[in-house]
């Protein structure tokens, strides 16, 4: 069986991060972007936990991740709330269409 080391975790995290970033950049659907953000956050979380596990002090990394999860959830809530508010108005969550504010 292969031994899973730090690099593996980092690579996965990096991939997650890039995926999230791409999603954020290419999708126009607000919810999709929210998902992309979650991906980015989780990539960071994966990094943290991995570093915590392989060297560094275990505690702070883990604790950080706990906070991260909570805040990610909170952010998702707020995000969704606002998305709903917009949706009520536009019947749509395509961000291309909400560009009243510009210039």
């Amino acid at each position, binding site marked *: 069986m292969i031994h899973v080391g730090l690099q593996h975790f980092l690579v996965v995290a990096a991939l997650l991060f890039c995926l999230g*970033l791409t999603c954020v950049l290419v999708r126009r659907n607000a919810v999709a*972007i929210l998902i992309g953000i979650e991906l980015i956050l989780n990539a960071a979380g994966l990094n943290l936990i991995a570093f915590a596990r392989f060297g560094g002090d275990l505690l702070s990394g883990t604790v950080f991740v706990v906070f991260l999860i909570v805040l990610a959830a909170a952010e998702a809530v707020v995000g969704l709330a606002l998305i709903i508010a917009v949706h009520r108005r536009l019947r749509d969550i395509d*961000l*291309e269409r909400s*560009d*009243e*504010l*510009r*210039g």
Partner: protein
Amino acid sequence: MLETNLLWLIPGLPLLGAVLSGLLGKPLQRRFGKKAISAVSVLLPWASFGVAAWCFIQLPEGGSLHDRLWTWIAIGPLEVDLAFAMDPLSAMMALAVSLVGSLIHVYSIGYMADDEGYWRYFSFLNLFMFSMLLLVLGDNLLLMFVGWEGVGLCSYLLIGFWYRDLVNARAGMKAFVVNRIGDFGFLVGLLLLFWSLGGEWMDGAYRVNGGAFSLNFRDLPDLVAAAADKQLWGVPVLTLAGIFLFIGACGKSAQIPLYVWLPDAMAGPTPVSALIHAATMVTAGVYMVARMNFLYVHSPTAMTVVALVGAVTALFAATIGVFQYDIKKVLAYSTVSQLGYMFIGVGVGAFWAGSYHLLTHAFFKACLFLCAGSVIMAMHHEQDMRKMGGLGKTMPITRWTYWYACVAISGFPIASGFFSKDEILFQAYNAGSLMVPGWIIWLLGFVAAGLTAFYMWRSYFMTFTGPAVSVGGHEPQEQRPVITVVLGALAVGAFAMSFIGIPALWLDSPPQLEHFLAPVFSAAEGLERVFAPGAGHGVEWGLMGASIGIALLGLAFAWWLYRGRKSELPARLMAAMPRAHKLVYNKYYVDEIYDTTAVRGFLGLSRLSGWFDSKVIDGLVNLCGAAARGFAWIDGAIDRYAVDGAVNGLAWLVTRAGGKLRRVQTGRLTTYLAGLVAGVLIFVILTRFLLDVYA
């Protein structure tokens, strides 16, 4: 040197008159009529003449009077007092100016009798007296300059006295501006003199070798002597100073090339022409050169320039005078020519002779002008001699005074003009210190003398002889006594002046005036002459005879051509040589030449710089803006913000930039996020790059 506290009154009284009639004149005239004005403005000059005479009596033998009012300018080394000084030269000038001036004031009462600008006229005239006397009596160069410019101003005011006719206004402006050119020369000369007076700068203060710096005429001779070997641009600085000062004199005394203003100046009232443009102001240049004799004797070059310019002017102006028909123009050119004689005198080092001619000329030329004025009045302001004639019968006094003045100017031994002019011509011949042989100067002057005699007698015959003309149905009448008396007085003066200048040749003592002025011109004694003093009598007799002869010749010609105005010869002669006549008649087109070259060029330059300022300089600020504006125009987007909000092109540029940049803010989140990510990446790459740079 004798301290007194009277001298300031000599210019002061006319100034008082000027102020009174200037500020209160209008109401006074309305309330009490012109008598009141005359009372103030005519009596005060006489009073100042009285004071001048009194001071003249007080004048110590060979010494001077001095009257210091207060310190005018005192900066570091520069100590200039507001002070007056009277030495023989300025005494002579002051007396002449105040006497002739007062006489002409009297004449003006009659001449200006029916002009509503009476008070203004007399206030200006008094102001002129003040400036002229300031010029004459000023103790130092700067103060002299004040008077110098003051008379210029008054001549401007008086030439343009009838300002409603634009021609007069133009003439006035021409006079002032041309004079200003001269003044520029005078100013530079002043600066050169100041600079040359053998000092240097220490601790930012100008320390003169030997005490505080001074510009007054008592200390200047020694300072100038000390600076004799100083050079600037490889030229002796005294020469430069002398020449620049002489440019000033050319402006004021209407010498080539700056004489052009004087004929036009005849636009002013005739008494003004008599006083300012014949008797006094125009001689200021001569006076200045005589006053600065101690400077000129150090520089043969400068003296040569003065003498040559004078001689050439004398001849040149005389030729023009020959073909003029306007009686005042004739007199104007003869003035220019006579001034040329004076410059010959001072130029060849015969300063006293120059001054003497100045004095005699003051009388007979004033007389001529006033006669002309009386004629013009009689002819109802007709000045063309071709429309005159036969006035002699009805205007005897005018006629005979004019006749005598002609005798004087054309140099017959029974009048003062002869003595002064002849002395000048002899001294010119006698001059050994110039860079050209003296006889050349003499020759020019000699020919000019003949022409002078001719055109003066021509004017006499054309005006007073021949068939009588009638103006408005009746014959021209002789003027009122207030005028004729003045004419007589001036004629007498022209005669009386003879006695102070009778040459040593006739009675064994030197002329009184020469003796009187000697202390002022002591510097000139060093100049070398062709003949030792007392020698060369034969030549002198010869020259004297020659000049009488040529005067007679001129008279004869005039007689032949113009007596009784019967002869057809003049017309035929002109027909014979139309070109030459046209050329001379049009004064060699000098005015036209100046106009097309100098004046046009000047205005063009000013227009150019005006354009440059509004377009280029301001444009530099607008430059980037112009680009931006063009750009905005191209893509058809007129940016209204720049129009109202901002200023200039810089603003345009900035605003355009803002307009472009704002488009980045698309309002689309995707763009924003792209910006964020791009920012991070650029940042990383930049940093990476810097790392390589640093490492």
